[in-house]
Every structure is written in structure tokens, then in C-alpha cells.
């Protein structure tokens, strides 16, 4: 029995900043100081504050250490773990107040959050099934199998108002109901863990931090629709998640929580993994199932919908990881509990992956209906370097940009659609005044062009043509009529593409055209990039009043484009300048500017 638990994050973010070495050092140091029997080291999943990794939390006092280094470990062990004196200089700044150390749950980052899907992430060791059971794990499965009929389970989901967290927001209970109604000798339960949106990583976090929640929910789904086999389609680029899933499946089988005759009820269910090679289109449901079958991942037309003819031609349900992670809690706490959170048509909570120009990069889970301002300013800690908010991009390559005028809109499925964006999987990329909106649209379109599977023409060729026009805009070569062609193409691709990838690909362009058309116009008519991003439209200059003639810029210029001698004004030759910005970065007097 241990008197203290030291939780070290073993998620992808903290692992890449060195948390594995921290754990080795910690165990080593505990041994040296004779505390191995008193203090346990627990590897957990993600806490959400990825920007501050490696992260370490010491219980029972819940002290939060951020950006821990190996050389800090001996001090933490001798001071904190032995003598109970937290090493203040290493604590997360937000928790240190003049009156003492604040609890983590009272910091701005966590105070407004409500963690359901992420409730065990960063709390339990995902590689030990007992820890999951200790927090109430597999209770929901027990309840479902012994007290409820499949129809009861589906009714609970319908009453809860849970909608798919993967993008489109289809009611989960309805999906299950349709699959149950279709009789077949075999049905399948699938999980979409092919998280492909740039900037989204909530599913990875659940897989890494709480894999048993997914297994439990899929088993519940199997019981509800009458399936005996489940597949988790997970990207091979998530090696930690794949390992933890394998361990979790193994442990669940050993405990007979997966397999034949679960809890002696006669119900049998098994889950297998299928690794995807990382094609974005395989996140689309029909392409995903084609890929599980062993074929090239390309979408096929719907109907028939998966609930009628899905995997191997059998009735199938497909939900994403975050959706499943909510289900055991809904079963245990009741649909009313879940439906009490959120807005009228979007119930519960949503996880967002904060990225871009924001202080607290990481994962946050908030009730539906929280405003963008609350997420960015309060939880996210605002925008770094005193810059101004310009727009937020939600929904990845399928979504759109939300401008300042909608900063206070309550975020839910319907509101986002109404303003030309979408929930998507919940990636939220924040942009400030130094981001060019044409460039952002181009970035997302480059991604779509790269990932288009090529099966249908509107998507394969249409997106390529759109990208070419955007490229001309950013180079200052576009004519006014190009914008009209771009817009026309957007609507054409949207209306005629075969699957969701193509149908939503124009969204980043359409939403930036809608809210930032003046920026497009500046590129076309004035040949200027207002944010100072598009290189072809920029020139660098040296301010004669500020230049001290220190020669630093000239010495660092890789193209030898700067001339000038000591204590004399330097000048940039626009013919030679490659616009790399090194001079601006190096100048100590702020004399270099671009326009």
C-alpha cells in the first residue's frame, strides 16, 4: 500500500518531451532515498495541458509539476515526497498564488472544463484493467447485460440526445436502432479511430489514456444491436495507442470481459484491431469499411447505409472514439444526467484540441454551448505575445473559419453549421492578426488535394483547380474574375463529390471568402498581403532612422542582398532578396520591416 501516487503523463505529447526518462529516473531516485515502498509511480494518459509537458501530478495533495526535467527529480523526491515541501519553482505557475498552492481543479484551464469522455485520462494507468474497474469501469456493461434489454439500451441513448462526435453529428441511438432492426446472421460494431484532421488528437488521447472505456462501450453496442464481433480501425501512426489497445484487449479477454458468455449471461463479443496506413479518406465510413475488408480505401455511394449493408455486406454500426467514451457514463448516470448538459439540440460535452496561436495548447472538454471566447480567452489562456484574435478554424479540412464577429456564439453542431463551419472532430486552430486567411485556405486545400482518393472527378480535379487559383492569389497573379470561378467551383465540388471528403473540401475556401473577402481583394487588386505572410507580395526594407549600422543583418543574410558598412545605413537589394526574414529576426533595433 502506497501513501502517495506520482502520476506521470505517458501520452504522445509528454512521451515526446521525455516523460519515459522521467519515470525511470523517478523510480531510481525513490529507490535511492528508500521510498519505493511508500510512493508509487503511475503512468497515465493525457492531462490535456500538452504545452507544459512532461507533466507530473503528486497525490493525495494534487500538486502539479510542469515541464519536469530529469535533473529536477532528486529535489522533488527529497523535498516533496519525503518532507512534503512542494518545489514551488517547478510547479505550474497558475497553481502558485501568494496565499499558497491552488488545487489544479481551480485553475482557469480546468475550472470551466467538464470531463466525461476524458474523465480517466491522466487519472488511471491505462495498462491496468484493475484501475479502470476501480473507477467504476465495466459496471455499465454489467448493468446492461443483467438488467436491460437491447431496446432499453437504445432508448437510453435516444433519450440522452448523444450525437456522433466524429463530424456529422448523427444521433447515436438512431444509428443503433436502425442496425438492430435489420436482421442478419452476423452484424458488426466498428470504431473509427482513424483520426485524420490536422490538429485533432482527442481520440488518440482516449485510446492512450482510457482504452477500456472504448472496449466496454463497443461491447454494450454489440449487445444492443445483436453483434458478436467488433473492429477498431486505428491509424498505424498512433503506436502508443495501438500498444495500449492491444494490452487492454488482452487483459479484458483474460478477465473474460471480452469473449464467450460474458458475466455468465450467454452474450459473447470479441474485438479485433485493424491498422490503417493513414489515408485521410479512410476516416470516411464507407471507405473505412472497405479498408477493413482488405481492399483499397475508397468510398462507395450511400445508400445502402452501413446499418443495412456495411462491413462484409452485413448490418454495421460505426461510431468514433469520443462518442463511445461517453456511453458507459450515460448508462451509469442515466440519460437525464447527460441531457441536462449542453444546448437544446446538442447534449453533453465536446472535446476540443486547441492549437495554433494560443497559450494553453492541449485538450479541453467543455459542455456544448460554451462560447468560443470562453474556450480561447479563459481556458486556453488567450493569444500569446499580446496579438489580437482574428479567427478560429474548426472542423479541420472540412470546416471553416469563425471570425471575431462570432466570438460569442455558443458552440454546438447547429450553430457552427449556420455560420459556415462545422463541429468536425473538434480541432480548433486559433489564428491571430499575423495569419493570412488566403494562405490558411490554401493550406487546407493542399491537404485535401493530397488526400483525395481520386475515385470521383469533382474532388480529384475540382480541388486541384481550386488550389491553382488560390496559388495565383497568394502570388499576386490572380485576376478579379478568378474569384468568381473559384466560388463557382466550390459549389460545384460541394454538390457533386461522391463522399464527405469532397463535399466538405471547399468549406475552408467558402468561409474565408464569406468573412475575409477584403483580404482576397487586397491580394488581387492591391497586390498586397495585409497579414504579411504571402512572400511574393512582400518586400523587406530597412528603416533609415532606426538602423545603427551594426552589420548584423548583412552578415546573416544568406543571399548577400544587404549592403552597407559599419555605422552606416544598410540597404536591401530587392532583386537579390529571397524574403527569408532572417534580417528582421536578427536586427536588435527593430529597423527591418516588411510590407
Amino acid at each position: 500500500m502506497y501513501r502517495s501516487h506520482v502520476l506521470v503523463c505517458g501520452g504522445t505529447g509528454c512521451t515526446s518531451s521525455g516523460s519515459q526518462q522521467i519515470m525511470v529516473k523517478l523510480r531510481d531516485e525513490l529507490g535511492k532515498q528508500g521510498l519505493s515502498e511508500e510512493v508509487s509511480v503511475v503512468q497515465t494518459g493525457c492531462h490535456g495541458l500538452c504545452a507544459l509537458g512532461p507533466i507530473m501530478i503528486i497525490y493525495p495533495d494534487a500538486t502539479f509539476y510542469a515541464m519536469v526535467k530529469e535533473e529536477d527529480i532528486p529535489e522533488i523526491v527529497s523535498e516533496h515526497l519525503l518532507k512534503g515541501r512542494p518545489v514551488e519553482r517547478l510547479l505550474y505557475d497558475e497553481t502558485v498564488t501568494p496565499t499558497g498552492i491552488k488545487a489544479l481543479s481551480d485553475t482557469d484551464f480546468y475550472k470551466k472544463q467538464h470531463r466525461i469522455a476524458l474523465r480517466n485520462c491522466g487519472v488511471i494507468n491505462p495498462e491496468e484493467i484493475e484501475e479502470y474497474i476501480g473507477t467504476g469501469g465495466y459496471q455499465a456493461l454489467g448493468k446492461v447485460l443483467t438488467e436491460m434489454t437491447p431496446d432499453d439500451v437504445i432508448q437510453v441513448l435516444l433519450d440522452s440526445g448523444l450525437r456522433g462526435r466524429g463530424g456529422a453529428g448523427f444521433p447515436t441511438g438512431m444509428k443503433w436502432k436502425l442496425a438492430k432492426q435489420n436482421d442478419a446472421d452476423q452484424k458488426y460494431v466498428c470504431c473509427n479511430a482513424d483520426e485524420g484532421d490536422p490538429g485533432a488528437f482527442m481520440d488518440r488521447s482516449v485510446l492512450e489514456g482510457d482504452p477500456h472505456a472504448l472496449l466496454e462501450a463497443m461491447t454494450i453496442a454489440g449487445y444492443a444491436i445483436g453483434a458478436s464481433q467488433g473492429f477498431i480501425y486505428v491509424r498505424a501512426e498512433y503506436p502508443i495507442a495501438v500498444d495500449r489497445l492491444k494490452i487492454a484487449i488482452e487483459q479484458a479477454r483474460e478477465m473474460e470481459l471480452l469473449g464467450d458468455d460474458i458475466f455468465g449471461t450467454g452474450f459473447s463479443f470479441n474485438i479485433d484491431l485493424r491498422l490503417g496506413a493513414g489515408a485521410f479518406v479512410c476516416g470516411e465510413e464507407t471507405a473505412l469499411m472497405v479498408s477493413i475488408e482488405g481492399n483499397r480505401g475508397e468510398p462507395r455511394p450511400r445508400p445502402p447505409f452501413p446499418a443495412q449493408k456495411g462491413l462484409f455486406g452485413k448490418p454495421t454500426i460505426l461510431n468514433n472514439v469520443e462518442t463511445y467514451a461517453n456511453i458507459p457514463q450515460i448508462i451509469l448516470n442515466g440519460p437525464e444526467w447527460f441531457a441536462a448538459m449542453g444546448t437544446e439540440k446538442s447534449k453533453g460535452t465536446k472535446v476540443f484540441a486547441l492549437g495554433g496561436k494560443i497559450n494553453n495548447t492541449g485538450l479541453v472538454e467543455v459542455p456544448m454551448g460554451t462560447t468560443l471566447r470562453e474556450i480561447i480567452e479563459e481556458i486556453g489562456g488567450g493569444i500569446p505575445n499580446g496579438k489580437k484574435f482574428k479567427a478560429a478554424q474548426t472542423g479541420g479540412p472540412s470546416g471553416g473559419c469563425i471570425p471575431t464577429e462570432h466570438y460569442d456564439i455558443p458552440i454546438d453542431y447547429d450553430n457552427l453549421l449556420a455560420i459556415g463551419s462545422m463541429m468536425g472532430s473538434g480541432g480548433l486552430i486559433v489564428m491571430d492578426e499575423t495569419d493570412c486567411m488566403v494562405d490558411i485556405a490554401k493550406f487546407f486545400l493542399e491537404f485535401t488535394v493530397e488526400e483525395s482518393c481520386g475515385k470521383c472527378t469533382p474532388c480529384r480535379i475540382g480541388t486541384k483547380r481550386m488550389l491553382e487559383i488560390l496559388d495565383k492569389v497568394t502570388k499576386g497573379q490572380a485576376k478579379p474574375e478568378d474569384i468568381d470561378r473559384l466560388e463557382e467551383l466550390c459549389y460545384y465540388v460541394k454538390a457533386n463529390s461522391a463522399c464527405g471528403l469532397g463535399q466538405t473540401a471547399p468549406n475552408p475556401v467558402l468561409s474565408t471568402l464569406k468573412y475575409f473577402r477584403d483580404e482576397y481583394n487586397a491580394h488581387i487588386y492591391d497586390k498586397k498581403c495585409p497579414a504579411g505572410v504571402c512572400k511574393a507580395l512582400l518586400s523587406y526594407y530597412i528603416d533609415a532612422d532606426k538602423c545603427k549600422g551594426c552589420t548584423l543583418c548583412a552578415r546573416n543574410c544568406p543571399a548577400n542582398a544587404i549592403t552597407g558598412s559599419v555605422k552606416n545605413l544598410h540597404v536591401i537589394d530587392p532583386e537579390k532578396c529571397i524574403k527569408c526574414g532572417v534580417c528582421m529576426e536578427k536586427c536588435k533595433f527593430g529597423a527591418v520591416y516588411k510590407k
Partner: protein
Amino acid sequence: MKTLEELKAIREKMQSQVSMRGEDHARTRILVGMATCGIASGARPVLNKLSDLVQENHMTDRFSVTQTGCIGLCQYEPIVEVLEPGKEKVTYIKMTAEKAEEVYKEHLLGGHVVQNYTLSSADIK
């Protein structure tokens, strides 16, 4: 595992450990002085005893046992402070593992302060 009882048994076994990782402000905090003076006079067995008792009896949701620094009364170490929300702090002095067990049973579970061991009984001048 074929029954819900087996699941329940694992849950109970693990619960006290996992629930230590909560941040419940309503919990009674038990602080054991673990500065150099405390350790030298035997605070570690006291700390471990209290921590074990709370966990063995599935009481982690009611009590949290942590260390604290020196409060300046080194001659009275090992010192244990009991902070129950809404009540006055009780300070026990010159504790041992056995006395700690008595405090756990009488005070923490029973609600009766063990007067003999408290600081107020030591008659400080």
C-alpha cells in the same frame, strides 16, 4: 470473471487507491510533520501507518494523508494535524504508530478528540 460480485470485489479493492487521486475539498486533511525534526523523531512510521489505515478501510474519499513541513515545535515532533472542514484544527504531538492508530479509531472514525495526545494538553508556556 463470471459474476457481477467478482467485478465488485475488484472495484472495492482498487477504489481506495484510485480515489486518492481526487481533489475533493470536503475531505478531512491529516498532515504529518515530515521536516528533518519530524523524520528524526520518527514521523515516517506514523505517516505510513495513517496512510495505510485510511486505504485499508476504504476511507480515501473521506481523509487525505499528506506530509507537511516544520511548524516550529520541533521538541513535540512527530506532530500530526487534523483539519476537518468547518472545525477547529486539532494538533497531536509526540505521536507513534500505535498512538496514530488510536487517533484514527477514536477521532477520525469516532469523532472524539484524543485529548491526552493533543498540543493543548501539553501545557506550553
